[in-house]
């Protein structure tokens, strides 16, 4: 058969490999273009949803548009601000904890008094069944932060129980909750250190 002869030729094999690579790249490029907008929209919806979880209540502005970028300990921090009557009532930003298997990305909402409104983990690679209890879908642990601030508990108690603090660790996973607690504490310190800019009151008579 002709095809069989052809298949043995080096040129055919090279062309075949090239052709397959070309076809698959074209397919991927088209798929990437076709899905890009939907993926962005889905991720923006996710972000909005997670912002709403850590910022309960209504704000008059679009959080995604009222932002300020400040230098934090781990690079620039993008802060979303929620306002009522023109005044910044709450801010949301990302903090990064160091877990057992890489970074744990959290968002936290803080009220203008410096109290935590909520913390949510948005991305992590912790051990399924052990470290993933930081997800609200799997355990209630992450809600322990609600209402806490620097002072309740006092600074040295901002740690997991194993380290002499007040926050529970999980059976078999201490590194994960320790990473989250430290990240949240760092987030509150960031709030305390940048309060004026965060609340958009730098120019005011204070």
């Amino acid at each position, binding site marked *: 058969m002709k095809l069989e002869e052809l298949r043995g030729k080096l040129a*055919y*094999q090279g062309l075949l490999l090239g052709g*397959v690579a070309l076809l698959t790249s074209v397919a991927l490029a088209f798929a990437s273009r076709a*899905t890009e907008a*939907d*993926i962005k929209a*889905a991720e923006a919806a*996710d972000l909005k949803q997670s912002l709403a979880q850590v910022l309960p209540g209504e704000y008059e502005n679009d959080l995604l548009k009222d932002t300020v970028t400040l230098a934090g300990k781990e690079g620039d921090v993008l802060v979303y601000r929620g306002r009522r009557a023109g005044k910044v009532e709450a801010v949301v930003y990302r903090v990064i904890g160091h877990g057992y298997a890489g970074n744990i990305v959290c968002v936290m909402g803080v009220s203008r008094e410096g109290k935590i409104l909520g913390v949510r983990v948005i991305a992590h690679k912790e051990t*399924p069944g052990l470290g993933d209890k930081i997800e609200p879908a*799997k355990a209630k642990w992450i809600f322990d932060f609600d209402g806490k601030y620097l002072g309740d508990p006092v600074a040295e108690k901002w740690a997991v129980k194993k380290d002499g603090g007040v926050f529970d660790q999980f059976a078999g996973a201490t590194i994960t909750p320790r990473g989250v607690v430290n990240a949240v504490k760092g987030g509150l310190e960031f709030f305390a250190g940048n309060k004026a800019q965060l609340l958009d009151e730098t120019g005011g008579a204070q």
Partner: protein
Amino acid sequence: MNEKYAHITREGLWSNNVVFAQMLALCPTLAVTSTATNGLGMGLATTAVLLLSNVIISSVRHLVSPEVRIPVYIVLIATLVTLVDMSLNAWAHELYKVLGLFIALIVVNCAILGRAEAFASKNGMADSALDGLMMGLGFTAALVVIGGVREIFGSATLFANAHLLLGPAFSFLEMTIVPDYKGFLLMILPPGGFMVVGLLLAAKRVSDQRRAARAQLAAAEVAVN
């Protein structure tokens, strides 16, 4: 013809099971089977990819030179997985958030390349589709059993968080077997996976041997009579 389909089905589900007979795909198997739900998610995603890759590879099998077949298959499989990954991310985002972790892992699942090489490159499209489906279901069953055993001993639950994967209608699957269980970490960590796979493998061998011995005995009796 029917006999052939029955043979393919039996091979995929039991006698040539991806995990328990071919001993392929152990890396994803050990990595994701800490719960039965995770095993189910990985199994279903793999089944979909296996079915599609077998059909595609079977349809181009006459065009591909044997000398370059491996890179061609790998490129095709990787493309397929990426397409599935992107379309789930765009159009089934909720499902993607649960399965996302598993989908990228499918590229490195040697069972898929193994079936392309051993079956789809030598057989027609219908046979290959059935083979992909049955191998996938056999893989899914193996993962669910391993995950179930590890979950029961490791955290005394079964199908925990199934509603995240299958929707709220399936939350009835979720069971807590021993309330207030302290957890048995070894079972959840990878070493527990090795142990459970080993023990289940031994159990399957014993059952196969017993069945073969019984069949032999029956055959001998028939011969004597």
